[in-house]
């Protein structure tokens, strides 16, 4: 509990420090707005609904990308797990996967899917899906052999074993994959919008930057930071609960 408070104090102090530096003019208004002003600006754009369409586009894309990554990653993980030869061959590639700067493939998706949500979702899925595959493989690897033997002792069918023993045993590991899929979907969608798109929060931030509209820009940046923090905190809470059950 005291650690929690300490953390709150650290974060609050940093925000207050920035607030102070902005107020006295050490950080010029041209560079950064005071945090309190950001909040005011955010409330303002949420009230007027000026960016509602962009916000909706972005969060829809993130949701679709997350769902696709989780489902595709899980299924791919199952398939790779059931084919040891394929897995053997893929493993060195999977280990190097995050070394590939995925965003450079964005133009290729544009030629395939056109400019718009489909390309953005494709790039975000490309970024997020591998963490789900890795998490699935990891979870399946770590089902203790004795649990499968136990299912055999109860003379359970293959399907029942998968549903009642293997799935719950892998769940904590799968959730790690879910967490990463969410984070990478956020990064993939917003970064794609930022660099090369005509809609969404990322685009709106880049647009506001180019027009020197610092008020809008910081309001949207704050919106992203707050959303990610909230989502992250909730996921971590669920994660901690799942991990507490994991022993061995």
């Amino acid at each position, binding site marked *: 509990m005291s*650690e929690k408070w*300490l*953390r709150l104090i*650290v*974060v609050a102090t940093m925000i207050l420090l920035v607030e102070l530096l902005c107020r006295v003019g050490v950080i010029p208004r*041209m*560079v*950064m707005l005071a945090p309190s002003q950001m909040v005011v600006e955010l409330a303002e754009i949420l009230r007027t609904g000026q960016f509602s369409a962009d916000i909706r586009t972005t969060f829809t894309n993130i949701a679709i990308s997350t769902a696709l990554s989780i489902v595709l990653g899980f299924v791919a993980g199952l398939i790779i797990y059931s084919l040891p*030869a*394929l897995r*053997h*061959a*893929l493993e*060195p*590639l999977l*280990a*190097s996967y*995050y*070394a*590939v*700067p*995925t*965003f*450079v*493939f*964005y*133009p*290729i998706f*544009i*030629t*395939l899917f056109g400019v718009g949500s489909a390309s953005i979702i494709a790039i975000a899925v490309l970024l997020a899906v591998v963490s789900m595959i890795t998490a699935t493989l990891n979870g399946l690897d770590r089902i203790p052999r004795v649990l499968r033997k136990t299912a055999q002792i109860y003379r359970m069918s293959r399907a029942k074993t998968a549903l009642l023993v293997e799935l719950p045993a892998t769940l904590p590991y799968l959730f790690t994959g879910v967490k990463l899929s*969410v*984070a990478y979907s*956020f*990064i993939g*969608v*917003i*970064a794609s919008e*930022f*660099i*090369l798109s005509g809609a969404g*929060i*990322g685009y709106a*931030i*880049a647009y506001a*930057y180019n027009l020197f509209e610092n008020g809008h*820009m910081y309001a*949207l*940046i704050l919106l*992203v*930071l707050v959303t*990610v*923090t909230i989502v*992250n*905190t909730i996921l*971590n809470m669920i994660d901690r609960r799942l991990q507490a059950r994991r022993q061995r």
Partner: protein
Amino acid sequence: MPRLAGTLIVLLTFILLWQGFHLLVGSSAIASPLQTVVKLGSLLGTGEFWLNISETMRAFVAAFLLSLLGGISLGIVLGVRKLAGNVAEPILTTLYSIPKVVLYPLVLLCFGLGISAKIAFGVMHGLIPITLFSMNAIRQMKPVYRRTSQVMRLSPSQSAFTVILPAILPEIISGVRLGFSLTLLGVLIGEMFASQRGLGFLLTSAINLGQIDTIMAIALLLTVFAVSCNSLMMLFNRQLTHR
């Protein structure tokens, strides 16, 4: 070695799929593997391309070194100081999962358009994973190692270099591998958004001009570079741990 053969087969399959895709959608949408390699060869023959490479590499090397030194030292401090580590960890994981692009305008406003903004942006990407991995390496080190070095009456520096460092190095290298990739990504994104030089800039201009073969040639170059460096680090790690 059969493992290598399998991987080669997968790569070959990938190239065949690429070629098939190319035949399906046509040259204007996807360059063929051969076209891409030829284009890359001709690009590498021009001095201007090498100028852009060196521009990107300068920013990348600087950002990577800063992430490396900063991340490892910060990680060690947070790993040794339990309370500081516990307080910092959730903050760091949240920072890790935010899309850092949204902060790029702030970086540009602070550092201006130029190499320092790219370096700063690269560090923002690479620093946190290296810090997190180094911190956890220290925290998860078996306490028996430290006790053994005490029993052997090693001096603090002896214990640090002969026991602790070898014990935590594999974890740290994993962090460095991730940090390496993300730093590169950060520098490239920086160049793609706002720069007049570098591979990222070349990518953006090729996108705007619709030069699909140039885009794919650069993507291939970057992929080969990143994957080879990553493989070297993995190999080094395996040598080190005798696994």
